[in-house]
């Protein structure tokens, strides 16, 4: 198990290079290789999650052990949260890559697309596995830079504009993160997350730590598109090609935003009440304002993009309430429930938001537009797209028995249990508005009369696109099985356990 860990980074990286080298010579290679590699990695991550024994695995690159108890090597750390994230990244990555085989045919420079795609996945896998804070930054930038390029892939006016804005804001946040890394290194003389955590426990320069924490919230908050750092997201996510939108919205903002917030604030910093409150407030703002911005949109993908902000708000609320309970010294099992709800919602969001973007891509592929005012009546001619899109819409708006219902239920119950009734009420109202806006999308796209297109032109998307959509739609229902106690305890509880028991993560220092 241990020696398989670096494969998550090597394989996509090697694929990217091979495609750049030989892709032009063998067209089959550039199409089949990314899907094959990502399928293998998906299988590997599911093997990890099944054979998980709730330990933490460490991989030392280059075999450099610690010297005088100071970890000097680059470490990959594999714990429950990392495995969960790996599953999400590689699964959605595989399905988007497979989807892209048909979708991306229309564009020139296919090999560059696949190379950048694999590079992005390598970056995200690296972020999730990395055990020290600077490598995390490097992988984060790999993922971010390839996403900048992918957003501008269609090289049209709007796409370039979106990409430029995304880059400028992304660079700003990256610089704040880099500044933070500098400050942390200056303060602790270490880059290893566990080591930093140990050193910071010993000493207490409270103001500096709070300063660092806030810079991290702003930096990762921008990557995760939390309000008020969200402004790039609707532009970028709606401009990218659809499989990339699915990756950006479904995975990227989680892997380089939410995941890092969770990882650093639980495992590196001590949880304080003020920071927990701040995170919860930001989450609430994102949840409410995001959905209010989404409801009036007429561009299909822009609507979906704004919903990503809102749904990330749910995730952050779940996490934030857990932090609040922990900071107040409340019942740990309720904190665990809340955090598990947030993580569960994150998993679910990857599935249904990925699916929704793929649906939008299929609609755009056949009709050539994604303006809701021009669409209509597609349910008859595109049965797969319309039914999968309905299931994803119901999942995101929290209609049972789809997975979104259960995760929202957990978050709402946890919020009420922690006596944040206003938050509970807002979460429910936002869920209702989400339902309204997704029914609008359904109504305008799939119901009503077919607009005056050439009827022969409107047909179901090609096989690879349908396959990805169907698999994700099945997952939309299938993931609700995670609520069943037996399965939940095997997966979710391990994930939460390493988060709420900080000392457990620090054990990796002794295992080195």
């Amino acid at each position: 198990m241990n020696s398989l860990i670096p494969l998550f980074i090597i394989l996509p990286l090697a694929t990217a290079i091979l495609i750049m080298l030989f892709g032009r010579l063998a067209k089959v290679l550039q199409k089949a290789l990314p899907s094959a590699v990502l399928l293998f990695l998906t299988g590997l991550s599911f093997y990890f999650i099944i054979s998980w024994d709730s330990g933490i695995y460490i991989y030392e690159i280059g075999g450099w052990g610690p010297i005088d108890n100071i970890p000097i090597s680059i470490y990959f750390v594999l714990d429950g949260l990392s495995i969960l994230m790996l599953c999400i990244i590689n699964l959605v990555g595989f399905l988007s890559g497979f989807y892209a085989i048909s979708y991306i045919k229309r564009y020139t420079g296919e090999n560059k697309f696949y190379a950048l795609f694999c590079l992005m996945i390598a970056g995200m896998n690296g972020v999730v596995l990395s055990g020290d804070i600077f490598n995390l930054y490097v992988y984060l930038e790999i993922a971010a830079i390839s996403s900048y390029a992918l957003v501008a892939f269609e090289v049209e006016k709007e796409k370039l504009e979106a990409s430029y804005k995304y880059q400028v804001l992304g660079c700003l946040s990256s610089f704040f993160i880099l500044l933070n890394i500098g400050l942390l290194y200056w303060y602790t003389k270490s880059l290893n997350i566990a080591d930093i955590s140990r050193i910071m426990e010993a000493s207490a320069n409270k103001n500096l730590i709070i300063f660092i924490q806030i810079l991290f919230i702003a930096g990762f908050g921008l990557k995760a598109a939390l309000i008020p750092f969200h402004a790039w997201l609707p532009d970028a996510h709606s401009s990218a090609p659809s499989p990339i939108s699915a990756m950006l919205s479904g995975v990227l903002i989680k892997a380089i935003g939410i995941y890092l917030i969770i990882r650093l604030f639980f495992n590196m910093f001590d949880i304080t009440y003020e920071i927990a409150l701040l995170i919860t407030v930001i989450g609430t703002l994102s949840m409410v304002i995001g959905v209010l911005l989404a409801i009036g949109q007429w561009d299909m993908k822009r609507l979906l993009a704004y919903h990503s902000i809102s749904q990330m708000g749910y995730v952050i609320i779940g996490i934030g309430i857990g932090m609040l309970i922990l900071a107040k010294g409340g019942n740990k099992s309720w904190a665990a429930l809340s955090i598990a709800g947030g993580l569960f919602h994150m998993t679910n969001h990857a599935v249904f938001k990925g699916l929704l973007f793929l649906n939008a891509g299929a609609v755009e592929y056949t009709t050539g537009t994604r303006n809701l005012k021009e669409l209509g009546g597609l349910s008859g001619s595109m049965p797969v797209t319309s039914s999968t899109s309905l299931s994803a819409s119901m999942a995101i708006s929290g209609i049972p028995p789809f997975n979104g219902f259960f995760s929202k239920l957990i978050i709402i119950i946890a919020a009420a249990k922690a006596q944040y009734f206003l938050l509970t009420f807002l979460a429910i109202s936002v869920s209702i508005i989400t339902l309204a806006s997704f029914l609008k999308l359904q109504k305008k796209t799939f119901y009503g009369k077919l607009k005056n297109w050439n009827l022969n032109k409107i047909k179901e998307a090609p096989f690879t696109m349908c396959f990805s959509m169907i698999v994700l739609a099945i997952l939309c229902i299938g993931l609700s099985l995670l609520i069943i106690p037996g399965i939940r305890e095997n997966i979710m509880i391990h994930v939460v356990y390493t988060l709420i028991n900080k000392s457990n993560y620090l054990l990796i220092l002794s295992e080195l």
Partner: protein
Amino acid sequence: MTIARELFISTFLANISFIVFLPLFTGILLIVLPQRFRIFKQVFALIISIITFISALLIYIAKSAGRYVNLFNLFPLRYLSLSEDFEAVTGLAVLNVDNLAKLIVLFVCLFSVIIIIYSFAYINKANNIRNYYAYLMLTLACSVCAALADNLILFIIFWGFLCLTLYKLIKGYDEESSTAATKSLILIGASDGFIIFGMAVLWKIGQTMEISRLNVATNNFLNVFAFFSFLIGSFTKAGAFPFHTWIPDYAKKAPASSSAFLPASLDKLLGIYFMVRICKDMFVINQWLTLILLITGVITIIIGVMMALMQHNYKRLLGYHAVSQVGYMVVGLGLGTPLGIVGGLFHMINNALYKSGLFLVAGSIEKRTGKENLNDLGGLSRAMPLTFIAALIFSLSISGIPPFNGFASKWTIYQGIVDFGKETGIANRLWIIWLSLAVIGSALTLASFVKFITGAFMGRARKEFNKVKEVSTVMWLPQVFLALVCIGFGIFATNLVLPKIFAPLVGDFQYAGSWNSSTISFLVLISIILGFLIYLAGNIKNMRTADSFVGGEKIQQQTGYSSTEFYKTISNFNIFSFFYKKADNKRFDIYNVSKDIILWLYRRFSTAHSGVLSSYAIWFLVGLTIMLILLLSFI
């Protein structure tokens, strides 16, 4: 042989998980099957629904009330050795099979059989809905499971799924119908949200999630809040004021069989069922809540019927009546006395019977004539005699004319109100108001059904309807069957139906007097006279506005017999016209009001996203600075 049969019955047919899982799996199977097996799907769905009905009947007859059955315990799944993981699940999936649940399940199964038979002819290739039968079966399964569920989480899962089938059973072929479907799903989804809120509050105050073990006093703010959250859920489902607005829209645009199945019967059954559970089992309600319930009830009665009076589209008219009748049930249940609850439940069953019957009649009319407006109809009684007789019986039932079932249940509710007035409480002292408003509502119902019957069936037959024939057997059979049940329930109300079916639901109650009780007869008389007076007034008014007869003119439709024109005069009254105009603009529709507010907010936030990069960067810095100032200054 008999032993084998006994064994078969006891292991399968009389097994509670059997009637949950059989339609569920059938529904999933029917979704997977391709479209071209339509006939097979129909027959298969019918067979399964009949089997389900039979097993529901067997369960109903078996005297095993109040038994807790584990959903997985009796199902063959238990033979799979899924060890302790599975044990944890089964704790959630506990079913409570008491008398009330059994009754609801029985009627749910009955209605599904009737609707499927009716759909054989009604749903044809022209107005086919994708996966119609599959969603009918799923609806059946989920309704049964929602009625039986003891755990609130299990309950909300199946209850929530019902709104999706409601959405899928309407064909979104044009703008208006897809709007109606959207609106229904949003309103019902919102009510589900409120139920979840109530559940969260219950969880907070440390209660269990099992309905049969809950007994929450409504003495503090939180508990009342939870109570209202649940109440909103049940009101929206059943369609009580002010959450009723989806029902008329849905009834207008959906296929009549869908309307008969969901808003007219199943949603009423489940919504009122849940309300009984809330008021009777889960919470101990105090007198202020009783007052609120009664006020909501009478407002629902009056508003529903006043709006119904104005409708020209007969399906929409029926939709508003579906709202109005809920008011009686809310009043009955709101009384909280055993007699009131029995009256409410009895009215719920009766309402489901005649209202789904009326929708089937509407479907038959629509099928044969293709018209949706009462103004375009007339004189169908000769062409469609069976439909006409059924419609007449349903109309008399809904208006509360003896000896039909509507009278029996309304009478029980009136009796309940009178009994209720004997005690001292705020709501009790106002009993005369509740009683009078309920009676007025009944009279107005009669008036509007006179309009329906005369508009559709009476009068001069139009030429274009010359070729109209009676509907096919599979379509009139369900109507006639429902009409017979209506008569039967009415005639045997005091002897058989009330003591045998409804008495076990609430235990002992004082059943006062016979039909000849003077107060009640008097009240009924008043309601009949009032109705006919209004009707006659309509005729006089109509005569007055007609042109004078000079001779030699052709016979005009208008001079002959117009039933709908008169009702415009009501809307022209000064007081009413104001409200009707507002209602036409959907000013009172909770859905439209909240939509406007949200869109206003959207425009405010949307203008901030001006597309200028530096403002985005400034947001980032401002956010950062505010966070820094807040945290570093307060620590």
